[in-house]
Each structure stands twice: as structure tokens, then as C-alpha cells.
């Protein structure tokens, strides 16, 4: 094993120099490894941020303060920043990472978007998006948004009451529910290539819920068209229900006689009900719903019954056991 020592003593590096070089190399390895660990950390824990350049919506009407405060159209709490609203999204069609939805959805093409309104209606129709948006002038609605994951935002939506659209197609008397469906296109929505949910995403409301003025079809936030990550070009917002009821990128609305199936309910029936009304007294089987992290605030807020819209919508559920119909 021993190699004959052929190196003459004059060639041996002076120990002082050798150890200096050694130190130098070690410092280099330390720095390089720390940078590498830092990069791994950054990769595993991405943080989202970025600009929103969608077109400004023209002719926006803001509710006057007196009527807004009594109708629930404008909540009197600080609005969540546009950056947070557009970089913390649950939209599994693009990514299951909330901070990763915005980059994954960038460039989502909504040209030629159509929404089919069908089922138990007098006048079924496939709307071009522009025609759909012309049904009623865009209004600003500042709503609380409570996610089932126990965080919340205050979002200035742009949209109009869903009832306006439903009135246009004239529901038949047998229509008891409204079913909604998201676009199914794994080329444009790469998250649909994974089997994490049963695509397309579907949601539903009872007819009286759908006709409530607080339930809106939203096409914008902060006076701009919806960016892809928030459900472009058109989505549902039902402020007294958990956020997952607010189905995004809608292509189909169908009025039905029976309760439609809904995606999260099928995924985990014991955890997500059809109604999914915000309710601090009925916990998620795995976590508490009593408090919420308001995005942009440091402490937690108590969660309000029906997300603070009890006065407006409480009567819809009179006599119902909300523990059973969660």
C-alpha cells in the first residue's frame, strides 16, 4: 500500500502555506454549501409577489356608503392588498401551492370565452363573455372572504348579482338548484393533469342562495379585470360561505331539480358539506374554525357566523340543523 516517497523535501509545501490554503478552501466550501442550502430552502419555501396589469374596468359603480353598509355590499374593514389577493390563491387547476398559482397561471388564455347557461330555464343560451358582462353594470362589492383553511381577506370585487343573469334566462318553476362548472382543459390548466381532485371542478347553490343579492358573478378585483390566478375571466363569489364555494373560470351554469354534486364534498364528504356556510361553531374535523388569520394582520380574528352576513342571509337557513348541513 505504501507509495515510495519520491517527493524531495524542497517540494513539500511549507505547513504554514498548506494550512492557509486549507483554511481558504474550507471557507470556500462553507460559503458554497451555505448558499446551496439557502437555494434549497428558497425552492422548498417559495414566496409569491408581482404586478397585476389586467385592464381597468370601465363604468364601475361604487355603492353609496349608506346603502352599502346596510346591505352588506361593503364591509367596513381594511382591504387586503392587491399583491396578497393575487399571490395567495387556492386554485388547484394551476397549482396546489398557494404562492405558486400566480406564476403557473400567468398567460392563461381566456380569448373567446363562453359561458353556457342551461338546464331548467325558459331561455337557455351560450353567452360570449362580453355579452354576459353587459347584463348588468359592474358594481364594486367589498366582501370578507373566509377560506376553509382558517385564513381570510377583505376583497373589493367587481361584478353583479347572479340573480340578474338568472332572471335573463328565466328559471322554470322546477329549478331548485344551480350547478356551476369550471373549464376542463389540462393544456391551459396544467394542474388538471394531476389527479388531486376530480376534474372539472364543480360547485352548486340552492336556488334561494343563488338569487340572494350578495351572491355575485365577479369579473374583477380592485377595479381591474380578474387576473388568471383569481378565477379569470368570471367566477362566483358567495361571501357567507367558505371560499371553495366560489368556483372560478366558469364555463357552465345549469339549473337543476336535484342537489348538484360538488367537488370538495365528493373529495371528503365528512369534511366539506354542500352548504359550507362559514360557521365558527362547527369545526372542520381536523382543525378549529373559531378564529381566522386575516391576511395582512398580525393577530387572529374571531370568525363570525355566516362570515358576518348573518343579518342578510340567516333567514335562508331558519330551522336547519347547521351541524348536519355543514
Amino acid at each position, binding site marked *: 500500500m505504501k507509495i515510495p516517497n519520491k517527493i524531495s523535501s524542497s517540494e513539500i509545501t511549507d505547513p504554514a502555506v498548506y494550512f492557509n490554503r486549507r483554511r481558504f478552501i474550507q471557507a470556500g466550501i462553507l460559503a458554497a*454549501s451555505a448558499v446551496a442550502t*439557502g437555494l434549497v*430552502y428558497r425552492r422548498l419555501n417559495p414566496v409569491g409577489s408581482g404586478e397585476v396589469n389586467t385592464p381597468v374596468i370601465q363604468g364601475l359603480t361604487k355603492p353609496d356608503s349608506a346603502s352599502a353598509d346596510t346591505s352588506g355590499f361593503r364591509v367596513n374593514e381594511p382591504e387586503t392588498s392587491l399583491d396578497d389577493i393575487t399571490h395567495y390563491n387556492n386554485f388547484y387547476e394551476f397549482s*396546489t401551492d*398557494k*404562492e405558486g398559482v400566480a406564476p403557473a397561471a400567468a398567460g392563461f388564455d381566456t380569448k373567446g370565452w363562453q359561458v353556457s347557461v342551461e338546464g331548467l330555464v325558459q331561455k337557455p343560451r351560450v353567452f360570449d363573455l362580453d355579452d354576459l358582462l353587459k347584463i348588468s353594470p359592474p358594481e364594486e362589492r367589498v366582501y370578507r372572504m373566509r377560506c376553509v383553511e382558517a385564513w381570510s381577506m377583505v376583497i373589493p370585487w367587481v361584478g353583479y348579482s347572479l340573480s340578474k343573469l338568472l332572471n335573463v334566462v328565466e328559471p322554470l318553476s322546477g329549478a331548485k338548484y344551480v350547478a356551476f362548472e369550471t373549464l376542463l382543459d389540462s393544456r391551459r390548466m396544467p394542474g388538471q393533469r394531476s389527479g388531486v381532485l376530480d376534474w372539472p371542478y364543480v360547485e352548486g347553490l340552492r336556488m334561494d342562495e343563488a338569487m340572494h343579492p350578495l351572491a355575485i358573478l365577479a369579473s374583477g378585483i380592485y377595479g381591474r379585470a380578474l387576473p388568471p390566478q383569481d378565477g379569470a375571466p368570471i367566477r362566483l363569489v358567495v361571501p357567507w360561505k367558505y371560499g371553495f364555494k366560489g368556483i372560478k373560470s366558469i364555463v357552465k351554469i345549469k339549473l337543476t331539480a336535484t342537489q348538484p354534486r360538488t367537488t370538495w364534498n365528493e373529495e371528503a364528504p365528512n369534511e366539506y358539506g354542500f352548504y359550507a356556510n362559514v360557521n365558527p361553531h362547527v369545526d372542520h374535523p381536523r382543525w378549529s374554525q373559531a378564529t381566522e388569520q386575516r*391576511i395582512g394582520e398580525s393577530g387572529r380574528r374571531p370568525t363570525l357566523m355566516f362570515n358576518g352576513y348573518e343579518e342578510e342571509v340567516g333567514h335562508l337557513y331558519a330551522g336547519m340543523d347547521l351541524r348536519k348541513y355543514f
Partner: protein
Amino acid sequence: MRGEDSSAMKENDIRFAKLLILINGVVPLALLSWDAAHHHLGANPPNFAILTTGMTTLVFLMLTMAVTPVRKITGWNWLLSFRRMLGLFAFFYACVHFLLFFSLDRSFSISSTLTEMLKRKYLILGSTALLVMVPLAITSTNGMIKRLGGKRWRALHRLAYVAAIAGVVHYYMQVKADVRQPLVFAAMLTMLLGYRLLDKWQPRKPAPAAHPAIKSKLEA
């Protein structure tokens, strides 16, 4: 003469490698603190910090548990001298993780922390993992290894498996639908525990000769 020289070099290398682990182990906390100070933790900083420290804990638990299989497969016995440090980092991040939950999620309320911890299955598992690591951290010193004796010490420190299993299930249970990341940890854990089972059933091969510098620790 030669042997002594090279063993001195090895001592040096081990010291350097320990420094390497120390520096890299601090990197996640340093970046997290830096980002927090610069308001760069995204939209939900409490959640981000809790999730990040939890993941870091799991990473260190996996690294700790990887030492023995890698050492046995490669014969690199010197790896053993890093196990304590990796384990202590896992414990450290678990403590930070818990303190962040206590302060940011439960607003320093002891009663709400305790009721939540007893009510939620995933929190029972998380607390189990943390509590189990406490005696392991306490008995991690050379003095304690001597006092307990190698056999008892090793038996006690098998609790690390309990901490790792509870930790991974704790993570899995909170995920809404996309369980890919927890499953990656579960797969790693299965491999690390599976290796130990296989190793136990296989006929004993003569252990690779330990380096003198750590032989004493192996025999401790």
C-alpha cells in the same frame, strides 16, 4: 508517526465537517428571520413560518436517521460524529415550530394551546413527536451516554423513530388534498426504517473497522 498525523488530520476534518453542519443547519432560521424582518414571508407569514420550521424539523429528522444506514452501507464510520448535531437541530427546529404555533397561531394563550393540542389528532401527534425528543436531547451529551451505558442509551434513542413517524403523520394529516410532499417524507421514512428491519434480519457481517477517533464513541 504517519498514522498519528493522518488521525490528527481526520480530527481536523471532523471538526470542519461539524462546523459545516452547524452553519448549514442555521441557514433556514437565518433566512426565515431575514425574510421576516423584510416582510417577505408572503401573504400569510404565521403560516409560512410554522410550515417552514416544521418541514425543516422533518428534514433534520430524516438526515439524523439516514446516518446509520449510510454509515453501514459505505463504511464511513465518521458519519456517526454528526448524528448528535443533526438530531439536536431537529429538536431545535421542532421547538421553534411549537413556539411559533403557540405565539402566532394561539396568541400566547396556554389554555387554547392545550385544548387545541388535545382536541386535534394532528396536534396530538405533533406534541408526541416534540415531547419524545426532549429526553433524547437531554441525554445527548457524552456524560449522559456514559451514565446510561451504550445499550440503554441506544434503546432510549430508538424513540427517534417514534418522533419521525409521528412528525410525518402530523404533516400528512393537515394537508387538504395534495399529499405529495408528506408522501415524499413518508417514503423516505419507510426506506430508513425498512433498512433497519432488513439489517436486523440479515446475518451479522463483521462490522467495518471503526476509525480510532470515533471508536470510543461507538463503544460508549
